[in-house]
């Protein structure tokens, strides 16, 4: 956190910038991310339905996807979404709203590490709640991949590299 500990002098929550984000904030951000992926999956379903209607409007009916297929689609979407957002800005949409950023040693996360973290999150989502117990608010995925999540709704925090 060395590079990210500089607090912004003014504005609400300025003193929090760069400090480890707590479990409530991260849970809300995670919920928003799940909602985003859920919306994406729903859009994909509707899109496929629309395409099938165009292909065969006479005998058209809603696509019948198995729960397993939906699960795989959601998991893959989640991994792609989390990896791409963490490896670029360090912020998912949920993180953008709640003002949290994923960092590694105070810097942006590399794509491989982001992929590993995304896999852990998808496989073991409740690992997030370990951040309520850990002294430095680290979740299971943080412990496994060496990352951290900090408050960062000021643009300069953790954005130097």
């Amino acid at each position, binding site marked *: 956190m060395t590079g990210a500990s500089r607090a912004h002098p003014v504005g609400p929550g300025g003193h*929090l910038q760069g400090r480890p984000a*707590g479990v409530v*904030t991260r849970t*809300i951000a995670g919920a928003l991310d799940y909602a985003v992926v859920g919306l994406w999956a729903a859009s994909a379903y509707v899109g496929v339905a629309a395409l099938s209607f165009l292909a065969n409007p006479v005998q058209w009916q809603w696509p019948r996807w198995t729960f397993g297929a939906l699960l795989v689609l959601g998991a893959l979407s989640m991994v792609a979404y989390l990896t791409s957002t963490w490896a670029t800005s360090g912020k998912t949409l949920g993180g953008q709203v709640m003002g949290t950023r994923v960092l590694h040693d105070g810097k942006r996360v590399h794509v491989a590490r982001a992929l590993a973290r995304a896999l852990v999150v998808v496989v073991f989502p409740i690992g997030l709640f370990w951040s*309520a117990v850990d*002294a430095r*608010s680290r979740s299971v995925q943080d412990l496994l991949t060496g990352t951290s999540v900090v*408050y960062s709704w000021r*643009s300069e925090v953790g954005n130097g590299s």
Partner: protein
Amino acid sequence: MQDHVVRLVDLAVGATVAVAAPLVVAARAVTPGAIRAGRHLAYPPLVPREIAPGTLARELAFRGRAVRILAQVELVRRAKAAVPVVVDEVLDQVDVTQLVLNRVDLARVVVTVLDELNLTAVVTERVDLGHVVSTALDQLDLTQVVLDRVDLHRVVTHVLDGLDLTELVRERVDLDALANEVIDDVDLPEIIRDSSSGVAADLVVEARTGAASADEVVARAVDRVLVWRRRGGRSQ
């Protein structure tokens, strides 16, 4: 004393008139005859004209006239030469200034002169006004004079009342350039980031700070439950 002199003069004039009046009358009576007699005497009938007494008298008159003119010119020249000396001597004896002050109605003279003069034209033609004004301005502290003598508040109020400032600014100020300059000086991207779309941004900030407060509450609760964590000390 003066009265006696005047009386004596009057007496002399009266006596002269008394004697001269009969003489004049007599002269008038005899003059035509005397003139004819004089002509006969000047040019006697049997005497040649060249040697007649009239011709001789005329030549003498010519000479006398020439001498008189010369003497007259010489006299005028000497008089002219003497004038400066005499005037100097006189002026040395007289206090002219005092004399003028005593004898001359200076106020009347000045008023008359001023009435006849077009002072504006004289000053415009004869005075280097630029030099006069610049010298006067050099010696004056105009700012102090204005501050002391002018009711600036009243002046400014009067001027502002007569001005349409908005219209004036529109006409005289390059608002585009000014706005661009201000925008260049302001870190607009930072302001836009900070203010990011008004009310929605405020709501987001509320959510973030609220969640952060909840984080703190949870952390304290966990601290109370987990003794080891409290001892180890939470990260700040």
